[in-house]
Structure formats: structure tokens, C-alpha cells
């Protein structure tokens, strides 16, 4: 059974992209933005990115790391990894249902 996904709030779209990007290692703001564009084709605006990042940090799903320069990297916390996993599992479930129904002749 799929665990209940953590509610990522109104930033769920950007939040999922950010958590997915951080899943392969810490990144700072611009690196996040570039990575998200490369793997999803979606370009998050700076305001949207930091709005979601702020919220994710408040929720304890990501944490900031120390840095020598102004660019501060972020990494996924264990709670964040769990939230991403359950969120993607739920999405996969909806995706599978949709694809199955399409394959079953859902189109006229």
C-alpha cells in the first residue's frame, strides 16, 4: 500500500521539482534552477524557486549548508527524502491509472 503523501502545500509543483533535484546531492539556487530546467524542461522563476525553497526549509524537508560565498547550498533532509518518495509514489499511482485507462480505449 502506498504511504499517505505529505502535503507540500500550494508549492507542490515547484516543491516536487526542487526535492527531486536535491535527491542527487546538494545544490545552491542557480544550480537548482539549471538542473530543474535540464531534467524537466520547466524553468522556475527566481521568486517561485525561493518561495518554494523557503517553505520547504520551514517544513524541515530541506536544510541549508554552510558556505564560504554568498551562494548557499541546500540538501534534502531524511524527512524530505521520505516526503518526496511518498509524493512520487502517489503520483506514479495516478499516472499508472491514467495510462492503463488510455491503453484500454479511453479515447474516442
Amino acid at each position, binding site marked *: 500500500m502506498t504511504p499517505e503523501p505529505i502535503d507540500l502545500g500550494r508549492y507542490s509543483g515547484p516543491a516536487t521539482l526542487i526535492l527531486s533535484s536535491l535527491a542527487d546531492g546538494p545544490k*545552491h*539556487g*542557480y544550480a537548482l*534552477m539549471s538542473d530543474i530546467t535540464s531534467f524537466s524542461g520547466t524553468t522556475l*522563476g*527566481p*521568486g*517561485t*524557486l*525561493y*518561495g518554494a525553497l*523557503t517553505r520547504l526549509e*520551514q517544513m524541515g524537508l530541506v536544510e541549508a549548508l554552510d558556505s564560504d*560565498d*554568498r*551562494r*548557499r547550498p541546500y540538501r534534502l533532509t531524511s524527512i524530505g527524502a521520505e516526503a518526496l518518495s511518498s509524493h512520487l509514489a502517489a503520483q506514479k499511482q495516478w499516472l499508472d491509472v491514467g495510462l492503463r485507462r488510455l491503453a484500454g480505449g479511453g479515447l474516442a
Partner: protein
Amino acid sequence: MSEPRRQNALVRWYPPAWRQRYGDEFSAMLEQEREHEAGSRSLIRSVRRSVDVVRGGLRARLDYSATFGSSVPASDRVRGGLGLVVFGAAGFVPAVVCILVQALSVLSVSPSALTPPGPMPDTPLAANGVHMATITVLYLGGVVGIGLGLVAAAPILWTATRMIIRRQGSRVIAPVVQLVGSVALYVAGITALASIGDYPGGINPVRSVVLVTTLPLSSAWLSVGTLSGPILAWLLISTTLWIEVGVAGYRLVRTVVLPPRVLRFEVRMATAIAALTGLMVVLVVLWSSEYEPYFYSRLGNDQYFAGWINETARLIPAVVALLSAGVMGLGFVRARRSIRGTQSV
């Protein structure tokens, strides 16, 4: 404005506590993005990015109390809220005056003397008790509101004056000059319009006050040939002045250092003004939806405006009144929420 300056201005739009935590890294990201895309960025993309940053700032401001409130002094948050109330009032006052003038115009004219280019109201509104009662309440509300505003403004202006005299408030001088300058220009405009004699009987001072107050929001200026060049010119200036008054009031309230006792008094006044504003908005909405007032002009030839001019004349002040009331409400809620924290200030 150059790109770096615009970027700094955009970052300043975020709440101070947010900037304190994220400002540096956010600016670094914006700079890095700009460097990587130098020469390849289109105007549309640049505008879209700026809109995104502004929208992010707005969201940060809306989440301000819940997320970052603890790191900002409560008295600052109260002053910020009160500043929004002042800014909203600067928009609300001319909008309501405009609506009331339309209401009074309908009452003060004999329909038989008019040249109606469009359909006239079916029933003489002056004969309707509800209409009269609504207008009476609105007028009384306006008078009470102005009184409350003056009482609320007195301690702020007094404190600002003392700070200037004691040379403790160099930051207060700019908003005071802005406020006094705007009001002085406003009075000068009224005087200038009163001396224009190209209408039958000239424009008396009272009508000039109404004119300069309502012109930006009424749409009489849309009727070609109704207004002369000087009045049309004033239309543009007076719009700016109302915004100037609002901005100056906001800056002044944010800058003046008020003791907690006075802050609490100001929040009580804001509570009363917000309640009155809410009542007036409800009355205006009910009245407008029930009676569909016609915009009436006495400039040049007496006539009702019909169709889209009439609709616009009602729509513009209504939208401005609602938006301004919204800003006032937001400021009031913020000030009210934060005032508890000033006990220890």
C-alpha cells in the same frame, strides 16, 4: 533603470526578515543568472522574471507574520500595518467622494431640465427613502471618517514635528516634505481651477474641490469636448498627487517612532476606521447594485452620460474603493495582530 539597480529594488520588495535570511543568496542567484544569460535574454523574458520576483515578494509578505514575524520588532509590524491603512485611505477617500458626488448629482437635478442621450432612470431616485437613507449614512460616514483620520493623524504629525525640531529625525523630513508638497499642489490646483471661467458661472471653489478630487476616478474626461485643456492637464497631475499623499503617509507612519501607548491608540483608531470603511463599502455595493446611478455632468451642457461612459464612471471609483479598502483591511489585520507584542517594547 539599469538591471542591477532594478534587481536591488526587486529584492528590497521582500520583507526585511526574509531578506535578512535569504537576501544575500537570492541576490547572488539573480546575479549568476544574469551573467549566464547576458546578451541572450529577451525583453519578454526579463519582464516575466521581474514579475515572478515581485510575486514571490508578495507571497513572502503575506506569509510574513506566520513565518518570519518573530524576528521583526512588533512595533515595526504595527507601524507597517498602520502605514498600509493610511495608504489605502488615500485611495479610498477620493473614490468614495466620487461615488457620493454622483449620488448627489442625481438628487440635485430636475430630470426635465436635462438632455438625456441615453435612457433615464425609471424612478426619480430622490423620491426613494432607501436611496436617501443610504446617501445620508454614507455622508455621515464620510464626515466621521475624516474626523477619525484627523484625530489619528494628530499624534503622528506632532511626533514627526518634534523629531524634526529636536533634530532626531532626519529620515522623517523627506516624507513630511512629500506630504506637505502634495497637499500644497492640491490646494494650488483647486485655486487654479476656480479661476477658470470658461463655463457658465465659472467653477466655484467647492466645485473645484470636488472636481480635482473626483476627476481621476470619474470618467467625465472620456466625453470628448466636455472638459477643457487645463482641467484635463489637472486630471493627470491630481492622480499622481493622490498616490503621492498615500506614499508619503505610508513612509511617515513607518518612520515616526511612536511609544507603545500611542501605537495602541492608533490601532484602536484604525479599528474604528476599518469598521466604518467596511460599512461604507457594503452600503455602496448594495446601493449601486439596486439603483444603478447615472453619471451626471453639469460641465458645459446638463446631461446624463449613457452607455459605457456611465458604466466606466461607476466602475472606476468602485474598483478603486474596493482595492483601497482591501489594502486598509490588510494593514489593519497586520497592525491588530502585532499590537500584542508591543507590551514589552
